[in-house]
């Protein structure tokens, strides 16, 4: 035999008007935060990073020693990091979203571990005087970071990461002489091309 239940139980009181309003405002904020993942990756920043990387590749190719070649690329890495953070902050500001809102945090958390791994491997290999695998390692680990960081972003971001990984594989498996030019193709070419796509389609 079925039991009788009141239509409105005391456990489910009617939702107050201001709770509805709060809920809607929260939904708008969360949607904007989620959608700003589309804009968190700066296209123009990518183009700028690509340009400096192409210049760095030309300068690095003319260095007489592997150590100086490494210094050029490490300097480029620091410069690219500064450009990237500045461009992300600028883009976040343009859409009134804090730099380290949820999408920004996700991107940073995805990208940081592979970058730390790359730095440690660079240090270890430099101490052992083994610089030949560095271009492949940098490209693959940066690609891994971009794929991970871009999981919650538009498809073009992880696609860029996969392209970096493919170039990294070529650098690791190909002749040592290709290393510098594959770095140019990756950090220069891919950043520029994907930067243009992101800038055009995802608001700068």
């Amino acid at each position, binding site marked *: 035999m079925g039991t009788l239940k009141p239509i409105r139980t005391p456990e489910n009181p009617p939702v107050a008007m*201001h709770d509805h*309003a709060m809920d*809607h405002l929260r*939904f708008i904020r969360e*949607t904007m935060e*989620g*959608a*700003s993942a589309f*804009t968190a990756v700066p296209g123009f920043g990518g183009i700028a990073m690509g340009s400096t990387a192409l210049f760095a590749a030309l300068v690095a190719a003319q260095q007489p020693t592997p150590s100086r070649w490494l210094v050029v690329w490490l300097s480029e890495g620091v410069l690219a990091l500064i450009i990237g953070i500045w461009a992300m902050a600028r883009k976040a500001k343009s859409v009134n979203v804090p730099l380290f809102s949820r999408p920004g945090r996700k991107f940073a958390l995805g990208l940081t571990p592979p970058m730390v791994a790359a730095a440690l491997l660079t240090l270890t290999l430099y101490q052992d005087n083994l610089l030949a695998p560095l271009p492949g390692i940098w490209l693959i680990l940066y690609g891994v970071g971009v794929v991970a960081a871009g999981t919650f972003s538009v498809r073009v971001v992880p696609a860029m990461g996969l392209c970096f990984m493919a170039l990294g594989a070529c650098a690791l498996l190909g002749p040592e002489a290709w290393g510098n030019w594959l770095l140019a193709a990756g950090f220069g070419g891919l950043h520029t091309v994907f930067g243009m796509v992101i800038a055009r389609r995802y608001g700068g």
Partner: protein
Amino acid sequence: MAKQSAWRRENPPRSAQPAANAAPELDRLIHERLRLGIVSALAVNESLTFSDLKRLLKSSDGNLSVHARKLEDAGYVACLKSFHGRTPRSEYRLTAVGRRALERYLAHMEALIRATREG
């Protein structure tokens, strides 16, 4: 890529104007959850494709299509239809009317919260 057509519904039809201009009343058009999501997502992006919106709002093709069309008919969003090779592509962006409607809606919600707290 095939030649792109112009943005559709840049200027809202006359019938849509009352919904946008009825300031004291709650804008029912964007009060609905999915439509509010579309407008909010477009407010922080220059434009988004149908696939972007679908993924972002976790919506089905049919549902998103119906609600996007309602916003388009009201002049809140503009749609650009084009082809990538043989694949059709719809790209949406928020119009000035849509942005004003969202701002009014936000003000309305904030006023409701304020009124409840003060009352």
